[in-house]
């Protein structure tokens, strides 16, 4: 067996026992990447020599010592590119480390490989990447989900042990579900975003993408916590996730929001998730039906707030301080307008236009202000629901992985892929997707658990107990 097939926690045990050396893991991974990458295209680039150097220097006494981790290419790592899979950041070299990168380095992790994403994390399939479309390891005719599709695909393909992703409306959880892995979006404020290239600042979070719940807990333990450089990261202690997740299920109240089981959703997904609900009921948890009355509005609220914030955040790409610059321009306005026209892809342009529109005079009240009010109502719904239960259980995605090209002509169709995930970002709660089955076509199905603010341990406890009793996460795609 290749070390590339092992989990982060099992590699850590072997490293600590001096059974293996970090270089062996790196070599096995590089070998695996050579085999899988031509089909998957999950990585944008990697530096084998640098990874081997890091492996030689790795301090295996540290919590993540000697284990390679892949990074989504919208997180700054000093001296390396950070393309956001956009032409506008061609040639850009990060001048500093994101806080999560500093923390991974301090924990002894090896940084190996930068993963593909939808341009500026805007999309649900990686088809909006200006560089390449990543393929789903379970069926290479299909997309891996997005926007962290590269991270999800390489973890599933066993060409990465674990990866970091970012989640603004489901970008960690939806690809995790579609690729059959674990994806955790922490509470807003739990993990510093310093160094993450911003998409929508009131929604963005960085989180782990792994093959097991324990691995997700290990990485969260490392990257969580306050950061003086990031004024939305909360000054709260980080609990011991690894021990708290092992608490038995008994007494845990699992809420099932009726609005998330809508007519027209994929039957196999509904069935798999219902079976999981029954499993919880039979294994010590208390299952309660709850209501989130404004759940239906989530996509509408999301596409107003996220695009509004994106239109402001992406104003910084103007051809002056970094990245691409249009040639032969007539004046400063022409420089901005042409640089942005050449540098941004269609989805990014669409969202900048929509975001500018919903913030513009005459439309602000009808769209942006109203969306903020509905967001507040959604948050009240979640507060009420969490009085009755500890976690909420829903499907992660309304369908399994779809085919490459199937939804690219219709943005609305693509946006609906996020129907179950955007609420967690809008209400700032934590959420995780874990594998809960396969469709008859052999495609992974994920279930989502959402938990109250800063109570990731509840999610991990619910997810870990389920995982212990199931084998879904042990299935490997044939490549």
């Amino acid at each position: 067996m290749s070390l590339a097939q092992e989990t982060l926690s099992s590699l850590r045990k072997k490293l600590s026992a001096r059974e293996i050396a970090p270089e062996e893991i790196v070599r096995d991974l590089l070998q695996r990447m050579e085999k899988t990458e031509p089909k998957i295209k999950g990585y944008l680039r990697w530096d084998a020599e640098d990874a081997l150097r890091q492996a030689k220097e790795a301090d295996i006494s540290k919590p993540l010592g000697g284990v390679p981790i892949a990074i989504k290419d919208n997180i700054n790592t000093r001296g390396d590119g950070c393309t956001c899979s956009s032409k506008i950041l061609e040639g850009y070299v990060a001048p500093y480390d994101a806080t999560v990168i500093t923390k991974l380095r301090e924990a002894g992790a090896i940084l190996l490989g930068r993963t593909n994403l939808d341009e500026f994390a805007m999309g649900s399939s990686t088809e909006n990447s200006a560089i390449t479309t990543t393929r789903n390891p379970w069926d290479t005719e299909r997309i891996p989900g997005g926007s962290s599709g590269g991270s999800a695909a390489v973890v599933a393909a066993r060409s990465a042990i674990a990866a970091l992703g970012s989640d603004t409306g489901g970008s960690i959880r939806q690809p995790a579900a579609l690729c059959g892995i674990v994806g955790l979006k922490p509470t807003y404020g739990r993990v510093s975003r310093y160094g993450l290239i911003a998409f929508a600042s009131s929604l963005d979070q960085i989180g782990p993408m792994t093959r097991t719940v324990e691995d997700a807990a290990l990485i969260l333990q490392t990257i969580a916590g306050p950061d003086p450089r990031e004024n939305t990261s909360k000054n709260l202690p980080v609990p011991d996730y690894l021990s708290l997740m092992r608490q038995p299920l008994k007494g845990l109240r699992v809420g099932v929001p009726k609005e998330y089981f809508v007519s027209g959703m994929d039957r196999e997904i509904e069935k798999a998730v219902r079976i999981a609900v029954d499993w919880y009921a039979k294994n010590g948890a208390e299952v309660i039906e709850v209501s989130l009355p404004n759940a239906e509005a989530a996509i509408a609220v999301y596409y107003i707030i996220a695009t509004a914030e994106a239109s402001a955040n992406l104003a910084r790409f103007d051809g002056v301080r970094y990245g691409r610059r249009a040639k032969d321009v007539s004046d400063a306005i022409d420089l901005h307008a042409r640089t942005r026209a050449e540098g941004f892809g269609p989805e990014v342009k669409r969202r900048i236009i929509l975001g500018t529109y919903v913030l513009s005079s005459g439309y602000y009240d009808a769209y942006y202000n109203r969306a903020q009010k509905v967001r507040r109502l959604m948050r009240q719904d979640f507060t009420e629901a969490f009085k009755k239960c500890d976690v909420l259980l829903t499907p992660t995605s309304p369908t399994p992985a779809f085919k490459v090209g199937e939804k690219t002509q219709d943005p609305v169709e693509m946006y609906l892929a996020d129907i179950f995930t955007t609420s967690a970002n809008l209400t700032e709660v934590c959420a995780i997707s874990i594998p809960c089955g396969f469709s008859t076509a052999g495609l992974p199905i994920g279930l989502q658990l959402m938990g109250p603010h800063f109570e990731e341990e509840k999610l991990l406890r619910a997810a870990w107990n389920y995982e212990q009793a199931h084998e879904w996460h042990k299935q490997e795609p044939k490549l």
Partner: protein
Amino acid sequence: MKKNSQRFPFETGSKKTLGSAALSGYHIHLVQTGKIDVAYVAQLCRLKLNQEEIDRFNTQLGDILKLVEQLQKIDVSGVPDVPPDFAISGNVLRKDEDRESFPVELALQNAPSKSNDLFIVPKIVE
């Protein structure tokens, strides 16, 4: 939200640079049709689009607006008319202390055009 109208670019001195075509767009824009005047909005956000893109975005953004129109059905009366003051997302402030700043060389390393420790841009003032 009266306050927001102050953010409108025409009131902050960019009228001249956009020209009269944009000004006529302004009047069209204010008609509440729920349809985006893409050519006009693209000027606001500094995106030079070709006609094919304008036509395509007009159709696609029309569909997206239909999707978000459902918000008009939700009763928001009584919900305060301010952005959410979520306790969770509130800012955490740090002490205002001296610390090392980003070195100029590093800040300029990605600049497409630079000279004498400065970013170079096309002439702005006539």
